[in-house]
């Protein structure tokens, strides 16, 4: 099988899984088996593309012509491969976890859940392997639409409101800013095909580059740059596996991915650096980073704290991309991976706590680590990764971002990174501390560890965080390829 066909097959697998899931709707075990099978085969397929991509091959395929001169085209590039690899491997884990969570909490509409989950993965793979901006936009919007039923899963008034904010902000920004940016790129450059050194090179002056960059960056609402971050906390009404999907597997990762992709593949690092059009972006991202951390610090609801942590972590990626140095871009790519594994661990843990103890507030977690040691152990590793401490993957990515900031001599960015690390520690470590070292206020009788499927999943992802720290070689190889080195 040629690489291009492999990419097309990878895109097809999640979509093909949907009819299977639907047919098995009356038999949950078969249904989850179908999902699992699809996830494993997708993951295996993506992994099988790795050697070729590392060797410098760029498997590509044109699927069909959508608009005159503009095809829906797939092209596997290092960054896209990283994203696809993260999404597909986390799909495998989260299938287990979701099954445990949904059954443990007696959630309804489980078939719809798994079908939409599979569709989201399909859209994420489409975003990852998009060969041009049009394809990217197509799957970006599809991702928003198919995750809406997941966000509003409970169907309550609150879910409805959350869904409105979610949809309104994501579709609103993409239609108002991203689409005109894409059309303008098409009008200016005459092509939407990503290129290693950017397609707008030499076609823009400084001011229009800044405007276009602003349209792109605010248009990619999934990257949650302030002031368009409200959808993330609003989407917290969803069941926890959905939050995991949004925050770690597909949605925000798609946003971060698009940010890097646009900076590298559309503008080109050198072009943008030459025009000096990204300094404001560093500032906005830095502000988002600090502000979101401060909000997270004050949030008592665990999921809300995690949500604002995501906003801040996404700003790392955007800021890293805006530094426009190869090292920082490498850091951005690495952070995409590291944050995914760290954040999914945290959400898994939050879901486990809810399932086992029905607790949602940080202040209720006193001593919970003693009854749920595995869960809170995983949580601790995820938290370390978020803060950027060894032995977790977050350390690596922050290291590269910091090196990038220093090599760019952007001392503001360095300061922001330093402060934010402190803030991260400030809102994560107390949770870990409470869980293990504060005696429970009220004896929570009958609270036990969460169901096995859930515990196992979070242990696996926490292990992956550590493994990425211990054996970073392959991932760094890909990240280096992203930065063009």
């Amino acid at each position: 099988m040629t690489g291009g066909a492999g990419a097309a097959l990878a895109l097809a697998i999640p979509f093909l899984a949907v009819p299977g899931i639907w047919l098995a709707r009356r038999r949950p075990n078969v249904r989850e088996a179908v999902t699992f099978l699809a996830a494993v085969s997708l993951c295996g397929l993506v992994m099988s593309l790795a050697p070729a991509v590392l060797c410098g091959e760029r498997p590509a395929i044109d699927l069909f012509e959508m608009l005159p001169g503009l095809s829906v085209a797939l092209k596997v590039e290092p960054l896209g491969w990283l994203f696809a690899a993260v999404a597909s491997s986390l799909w495998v884990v989260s299938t287990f976890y979701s099954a445990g969570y949904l059954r443990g909490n007696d959630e309804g509409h489980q078939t719809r859940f798994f079908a939409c989950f599979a569709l989201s993965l399909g859209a994420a793979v489409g975003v990852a392997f998009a060969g041009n901006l049009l394809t990217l936009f197509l799957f970006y919007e599809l991702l928003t639409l198919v995750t809406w039923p997941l966000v509003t899963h409970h169907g309550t008034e609150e879910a409805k409101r959350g869904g409105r904010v979610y949809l309104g902000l994501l579709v609103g920004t993409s239609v108002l800013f991203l689409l005109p940016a894409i059309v303008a790129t098409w009008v200016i450059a005459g092509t939407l095909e990503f290129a290693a050194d950017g397609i707008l090179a030499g076609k823009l002056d400084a001011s229009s580059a800044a405007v276009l960059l602003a349209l792109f960056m605010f248009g990619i609402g999934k990257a949650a740059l302030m002031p368009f971050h409200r959808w993330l906390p609003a989407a917290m009404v969803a069941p926890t596996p959905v939050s995991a999907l949004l925050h770690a597997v597909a949605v925000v990762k798609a946003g971060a991915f698009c940010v890097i992709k646009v900076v590298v593949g559309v503008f080109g690092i050198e072009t943008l650096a030459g025009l000096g059009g990204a300094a404001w972006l560093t500032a906005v991202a830095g502000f988002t980073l600090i502000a979101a951390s401060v909000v997270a610090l004050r949030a008592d609801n665990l999921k809300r704290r995690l949500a604002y942590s995501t906003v801040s972590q996404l700003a790392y990626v955007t800021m890293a991309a805006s530094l426009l140095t190869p090292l920082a871009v490498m850091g951005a790519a690495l952070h995409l991976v590291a944050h995914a594994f760290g954040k999914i661990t945290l959400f898994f843990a939050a879901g486990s706590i809810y399932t086992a103890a029905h607790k949602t507030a940080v202040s209720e977690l006193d001593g919970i680590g003693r009854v749920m040691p595995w869960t809170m152990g995983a949580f601790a590793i995820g938290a370390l990764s978020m803060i950027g401490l060894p032995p977790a993957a977050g350390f690596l990515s922050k290291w590269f971002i910091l090196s990038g900031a220093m090599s760019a001599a952007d001392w503001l960015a360095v300061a922001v990174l330093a402060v934010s690390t402190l803030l991260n520690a400030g809102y994560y470590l107390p949770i870990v501390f409470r869980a293990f070292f504060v005696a429970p206020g009220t004896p929570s009788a009958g609270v036990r560890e969460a169901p096995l499927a859930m515990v196992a999943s979070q242990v696996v992802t926490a292990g992956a965080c550590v493994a990425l720290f211990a054996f970073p070689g392959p991932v760094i190889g890909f990240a280096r390829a992203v930065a063009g080195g």
Partner: protein
Amino acid sequence: MLLAHLPILIVVLPLVAAPLVVLVRHGGVGWAVALGVSAASTAMSVAVLAEVPGTGVLSYAIGSWEPPWGIEYRIDAGNALVALLVSAVATIVLPAAKRTVLLEVGADREYLFYALFLLCLCGLLGIALTGDAFNVFVFLEISSLATYALIALGRDRRALTAAYQYLLLGTIGATLYVIGVGLLYLVTGTLNFADMAQRLPAVVDRRPVIAGLAFITVGMGLKAAIFPLHAWLPNAYAHAPSAVSAFLAATATKVSLYVMMRVYYSVIGAPTAFGAEPTGAILMALSIAALLVGSGAAIVQRDLRLMLAFSSVGQIGYITLGISLASAAGMTAAMAHLINHGLTKGALFLLVAGVALRLGGTRFEQIAGLGRTMPITSFAIVIGGLSLIGVPGTAGFASKWALVVAAIGAGLWWVAAIVLASSLLALAYVWKFVEAAYLSAPPAGAPARGEAPADVTVPALVLTAAVVAFGLHATPVLEASSRAASAFLRGWP
């Protein structure tokens, strides 16, 4: 030999079939004849459309009187496309009409329905294909009179007032059009569009020309329901028999828009219409108002059918916006949206016909929980709604893309911004449906899970599939629209 006569056969076939249906006085036969004629017209339109790129313009002299003395049928890539849209939508709507007409109109008047339908089809095709200004008026009235009667056959008494309202405004519109034509006739001495185009530049006194342009704009604006001349449309679409709603929503206003394009570009000429006179600015302002007001009004409707009707007012704004840009890109967008919106609204009104058939109404409290009671129909309505918003992968995206490219290409960033902002209004009304269908419980006494009969659902799904197909692979529509646009811009010298 047959090929040479296709331009007239497309129009004559329904004209002959209509009285035959009256003579036979049998509903089933009438339906079969109407379906056969529509299918034949579609086939002939395809043949003509395939023919025009080679020959450029097909000209047919009625009664062998050479134009400009006789009436000429003149077909280029522009009107062939319109004829194809009209006949194709008729062919798809008719299978679904059988059951709904029997239910809503009654068996005793069924044959009259199909006779009127054929007359309406004949009129719309005639408007599209004729090259004679007065002939346009005659066909306009044939289609309009048939339409008034068709709307009046609707389910309740509000259909009568809707039809009466439409009759008043439609007649005023047609009369204003014919006054405009009269003024042009007075200064050129000809009614043939092509001949008129040739003689107009030599006319010294411009005032009658400008007055004619204004009269035709307002007249056709009334028929095309351009804001603020749209008052007749929502009630007419909402209360007409279901099949009529679907057919008219997809075709009737589109044909009037075609006449506007023809007069602006082929007869008056873009330099006069858009250069010397402020037609473009006026049309653009009205289009933008239509986008915002139409979509805004759609949000607050409490009936799905009315919501779709108001959405049409907004969507027509996209087409006129494309016309007002007076560029090849703008006209391409206008033609593409004319087709894509026709398909989308046809699909949506057919789907809603199925909903009305099963649930007995389309008010939002009746359709609550539609995702559970009629899952397939409900999902298809969502897809149609996505096309109204312009989500990529649906036909609506392709034409919106073309429109934004045209606006940005012309340097009109703010227009592009408004176009896109109005999509968010569409998002609001479409999501009102989605929330009602998927996040509300069905009302008490709702029928069990199931779909409308296949003869209603399948044609609707065919159109929905076309919406998706032309969204994922929009090249055929956009290229045909681009050919049509260049045919308009080239004019009829």
